[in-house]
């Protein structure tokens, strides 16, 4: 219906000259339709293959069920032992049919659904051992052995454990199917640059060279698989799962027969940042950090190519599998400002992911983007980037750039700083949100802060409470009054944070703003007891912004208030705790802010600033 409406719209205006906007819209429409045709073609091919598989694979167990049921009905099995045997066959074959149906369902969920990954650190060695144990009885029946080995210390992977378990089940099941009786399947878990790899090797017949390319296609089955139970979906499902994780799966024939499937999944932020990994993993983690801050599902680091186009050098999250290599070779338009969506389209991301231009955001690295760019996209189901969030972009860009500018390897303290920052972000520090960055910038501007100071202030907002990640969790989550010792520990977070973030805080004024944001106008604050104008203006602004978000969003020990009551509280403290000018500034702003800044959402018990 929609399409028809827009078609009529164009027809009505066909006699007049098309405006530039109409041309752009028509172009978009054509691209959308082309995309739809491609999708339909793919679905059609899938359907054809599905029918071919269904006609053979489903009928095989059905043949046995029908024949045995018929034998039972016609009294061909009078002997009780024989009856039991026949009924057993019917049950086993029905179970086999059910497995196939489930596999089809798994596949369609992954292929057409938009399953959101539930990522957490996953110990792949443990998961591989657990999976191999589940095959114990089946393997033993054919005298087969499954060995799980870890190549030294292996970091955990950032993955959805349920999905990865399913991938491992498919790979192990496959390996055992093709391994001979008495054969051996070896699972090796090892670390590679930025990923954790799992090799599943069998000593079966291996895979003919011609099949290696197509083996991950849905419903594709090799001749070797002709006599083996299956739907031709197992490996396709593995491929989907691994792609969803931004990883990759490959297959090769082993040195002496047998096939080796290798799945590589991204390592967790924590392990990469603390482990001794190469620069590629650092890039991966910076991307992940950026994606986490912006709630993006996809992050692509682009380098400037000699032809003035962007070259993807690192991907995180969703990545189109089929044509990725091709697109990588031709690159994409360099995203500048609102052109982020064009870069995404060039990379083939809009075909599956977000189409709305407000779901794409780009960060330029270096002056005029001379160090490249980062393209960030939100999932179609997520909210679009809001104006306030776009204001956070330059802050993130500066952080990313500073870290990416490092040589081939970031020093350990920088890694630690990034790790702390990621952890603080995960704990959801309320005053380090895009809305807080925007409020601080508005307030600073109103108070006449210069450009450089405003930039520093935005960095400071984002980083000021990272030290909380280092305060004992029980204290952070405490309800009610804190003991003097606990209060002291909370107060110490400022210095803790500064120590931890030192490697990222190359600008002394950012550090000064953070250091002094708990000072009081009357000199009764900490850590240095500064008073009045001696406190840097950025720190005074930060103090008020911090208070505003603490009051309106609440703390672990106190529910949030509405905007009016929060403002009354801040005004009450003007001239004692807060700079009266900053208080006037926020008072003036609040009327306008009432529309854009959330007043009093329910308190989040896990957050505190």
């Amino acid at each position, binding site marked *: 219906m929609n399409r028809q409406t827009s078609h009529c719209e164009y027809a009505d205006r066909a006699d007049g000259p098309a405006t530039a906007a109409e041309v752009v819209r028509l172009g978009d429409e054509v691209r959308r339709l082309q995309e739809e045709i491609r999708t339909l073609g793919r679905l059609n091919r899938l359907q054809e293959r599905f029918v071919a598989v269904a006609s053979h694979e489903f*009928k095989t167990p059905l043949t*046995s069920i029908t*024949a*045995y049921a018929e*034998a039972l009905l016609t009294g*061909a099995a009078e002997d009780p032992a024989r009856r039991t045997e026949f009924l057993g066959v019917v049950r*086993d074959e029905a179970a086999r049919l059910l497995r196939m149906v489930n596999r089809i369902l798994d596949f369609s969920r992954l292929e057409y659904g938009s399953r959101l990954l539930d990522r957490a650190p996953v110990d792949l060695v443990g998961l591989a051992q657990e999976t191999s144990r589940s095959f114990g009885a089946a393997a033993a029946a054919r005298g087969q052995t499954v060995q799980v080995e870890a190549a030294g210390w292996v970091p955990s992977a950032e993955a959805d454990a349920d999905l990865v378990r399913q991938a491992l089940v498919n790979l192990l099941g496959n390996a055992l199917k093709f391994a001979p009786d008495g054969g051996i399947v070896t699972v090796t878990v090892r670390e590679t640059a930025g990923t954790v790899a799992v090799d599943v090797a069998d000593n079966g017949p291996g895979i003919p060279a011609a099949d290696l390319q197509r083996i991950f296609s849905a419903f594709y089955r090799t001749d070797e698989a*002709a*006599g083996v139970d299956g739907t031709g979906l197992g490996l396709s499902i593995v491929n989907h799962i691994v792609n969803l994780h931004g990883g990759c799966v490959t297959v090769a024939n082993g040195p002496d027969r047998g096939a080796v499937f290798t799945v590589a999944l991204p390592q967790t932020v924590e392990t990469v940042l603390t482990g001794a990994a190469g620069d590629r993993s650092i890039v991966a983690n910076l991307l992940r950090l950026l994606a986490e801050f912006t709630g993006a599902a996809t992050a692509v680091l682009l380098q400037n190519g000699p032809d003035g186009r962007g070259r993807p050098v690192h991907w995180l999250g969703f990545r189109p599998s089929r044509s990725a290599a091709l697109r990588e070779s031709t690159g994409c338009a360099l995203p500048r400002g609102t052109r982020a969506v064009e870069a995404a389209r060039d990379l083939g991301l809009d075909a599956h992911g977000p189409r709305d231009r407000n779901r794409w955001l780009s960060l330029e690295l270096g002056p005029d983007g001379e160090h490249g760019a980062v393209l960030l996209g939100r999932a179609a189901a997520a909210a679009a980037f809001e104006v306030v969030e776009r204001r956070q972009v330059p802050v993130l860009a500066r952080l990313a750039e500073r870290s990416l500018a490092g040589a081939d390897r970031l020093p350990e303290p920088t890694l630690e700083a990034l790790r702390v920052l990621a952890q603080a972000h995960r704990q959801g520090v309320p005053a380090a949100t895009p809305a807080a960055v925007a409020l601080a910038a508005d307030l600073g501007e109103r108070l006449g802060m210069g450009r450089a100071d405003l930039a520093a202030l935005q960095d400071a907002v984002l980083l000021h409470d990272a030290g909380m990640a280092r305060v004992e969790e029980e204290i952070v989550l405490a309800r009610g009054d804190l003991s003097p010792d606990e209060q002291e520990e909370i107060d110490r977070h400022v210095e803790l944070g500064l120590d931890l973030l030192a490697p990222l805080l190359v600008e002394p004024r950012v550090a000064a703003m953070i250091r002094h944001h708990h000072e009081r106008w009357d000199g009764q604050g900490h850590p240095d007891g500064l008073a009045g104008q001696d406190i840097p203006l950025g720190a005074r602004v930060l103090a008020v912004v911090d208070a505003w978000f603490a009051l309106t969003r609440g703390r672990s020990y106190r529910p949030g208030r509405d905007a009016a009551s929060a403002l009354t509280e801040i005004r009450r403290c003007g001239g004692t705790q807060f700079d009266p000018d900053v208080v006037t500034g926020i008072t003036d702003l609040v009327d306008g802010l009432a529309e854009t800044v959330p007043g009093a959402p329910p308190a989040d018990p896990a957050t505190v600033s």
Partner: protein
Amino acid sequence: MALPARILIVDDEKPIANLLAQTFEQDGHVVASAGDGIDCMNKMASFRPDVVVMDIMMPKLDGVEATKLIRRNQTYAGTLIIALSARADDKTRQRMQEAGADAFVRKPFSIARLVARVEEMLAVRSGLR
């Protein structure tokens, strides 16, 4: 009931191969089984069947190729070949017919009807002799 015959069942699906074997044995025939096309060719020489019930989709050597090999050998000229397949398309049926199968039965099938068909074909053949 037809004359006792030697029947070779070639199917990699054990449950269905077992049931066919039992049914034919109950009817007084002598039965052997093979799990794939290669196994079938070996059993041809040692068992010398009158009838081969041949599945099509099998590992190593499929039913079409096995049928062609059987038909190439004059020794087995009188052997009846009955093809079984879950492939419902006419192409498969045609390929099997060209290879030299005498009958084509689609899976899933009724055991009773398959047995009746085999015995009918055996009767026709013995009548022709």
